[in-house]
């Protein structure tokens, strides 16, 4: 198939940036979206132009590196997939595809389609962990009784790959689905209880400091999340926050 691509080009974080049109031809419908981007970049290199910078790593939908706002949706028009898993069969011959970086004040553009997502790292560092003594006699985690239901829900929350599609999709650039998932994965397990109060307070505080917006409960994040992280995790975070506020 032959396509017209409208891509955001921005030299560096201080440059103004603009949408630039490109043509790609003979794209196979079996290609992934990133493979199509590879074809474009080869074309650009061959003509002496600067290739389009975009994030990618595992290309298996696990690492959370790829992003891209494609035709007005995070990770494109398909559901439950990252951009690397999005296939060109989702598009038609002759289509014009708009490709933009994640947009959020807390995700500044570094170059072209690459954004700085280290704000997520700082939120994690603020409390997204449990402190375990590893002096040599660490207890086997499997020795702690955990209900199947709690283990499954914690695992569901833990499948968040931190790609930032929730923020990119949210009309308020809110990070509450991400933070909700990271709070939930510990809140559901006994190992997470010891630091539960500090965790939610510190992670929410860091989220606010990073300049993410507030949740309006539109549910868009849940729909666009490639891992299907449920809004239930935001409700759980809200409960944890209220509990922690009352406990002090």
């Amino acid at each position: 198939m032959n396509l017209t691509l409208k891509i955001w080009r921005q030299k560096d974080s201080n440059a103004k940036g603009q949408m630039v049109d490109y043509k790609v031809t003979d794209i196979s419908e079996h290609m992934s979206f990133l493979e199509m981007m590879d074809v474009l970049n080869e074309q650009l290199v061959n003509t002496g132009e600067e290739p389009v910078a975009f994030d990618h790593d595992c290309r298996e939908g696990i690492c959370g590196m790829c992003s891209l706002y494609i035709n007005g949706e995070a990770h494109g028009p398909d559901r439950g997939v990252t951009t690397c898993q999005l296939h060109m069969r989702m598009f038609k011959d002759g289509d014009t595809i708009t490709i933009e970086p994640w947009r959020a004040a807390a995700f500044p553009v570094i170059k072209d389609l690459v954004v700085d997502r280290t704000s997520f790292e700082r939120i994690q560092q603020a409390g997204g962990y449990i402190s375990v003594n590893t002096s040599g006699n660490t207890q086997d985690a499997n020795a702690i009784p955990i209900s199947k239901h709690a283990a499954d829900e914690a695992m569901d929350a833990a499948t968040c790959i931190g790609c930032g599609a929730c923020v990119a999709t949210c009309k308020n650039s809110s990070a509450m689905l991400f933070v909700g998932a990271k709070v939930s994965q510990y809140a559901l397990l006994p190992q997470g209880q010891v630091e539960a109060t500090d965790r939610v307070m510190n992670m929410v505080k860091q989220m606010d400091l990073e300049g993410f917006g507030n949740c309006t409960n539109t549910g868009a994040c849940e729909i666009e999340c490639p891992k299907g992280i449920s809004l239930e995790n935001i409700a759980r975070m809200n409960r944890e926050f209220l509990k922690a506020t009352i406990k002090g």
Partner: protein
Amino acid sequence: MSGFLKSSIGRKVAMALSAFFLMFFLIIHLAVNITSLFSPDLFNELSHFMGTNPLVQLALQPVLIFGVVFHFVMGFVLELKNRKAIGVKYAQNNGAANSTWMSRNMIISGVVVLAFILLHFIDFWIPELNVKYIHGDMSGLLPDGESYRYFEELQHKFVSPIRVGAYVIAFVLLGLHLAHGFTSAFQSMGATAGRKKTMQQIGKAYSVIIPLGFIIIALFHHFNH
């Protein structure tokens, strides 16, 4: 408390709490007003009670006004913070692919409802304050001194088709605001109930019945004065 209201979740919880109070108030308001459709006497009695009872006037009314003002001020604060968080806008954004118009435009429906409340205050609340607390007439009677004035004043207000039209439009927007706000308030409070089918159905019913009730009252008195 100020620390709590400085956090994003604290603000949303405060929005939800004021929303619950306002949604409860709407039920009471509609219950009183609906009596005007079938019993002017009952409407007059209830209006007089609500307008003169010290508990309602001195305790509930200030709480209600605080609730209304707080909900709107916090709504604007959240909107401004959210706009700041967005940064550069997308060239193409397909919001309809993943969310409802109501959920994305609470500020629009909210501003229309705010404009309506200002009109409503000018129409009913300020004249009430004037009669009761400036002129000191707590009798609730018409100049003839025989019967209550409330029903007649209500009918008089709905003579103008422009006012009735403005009320109808505002109530439709109120319905759209409630269609998202009802279940959203539960979610903000951390309750899973807002995500359950039963509560969503109750929310839908509430967001239709309450505005429709007020629309029927306005139209009824417009065509039956």
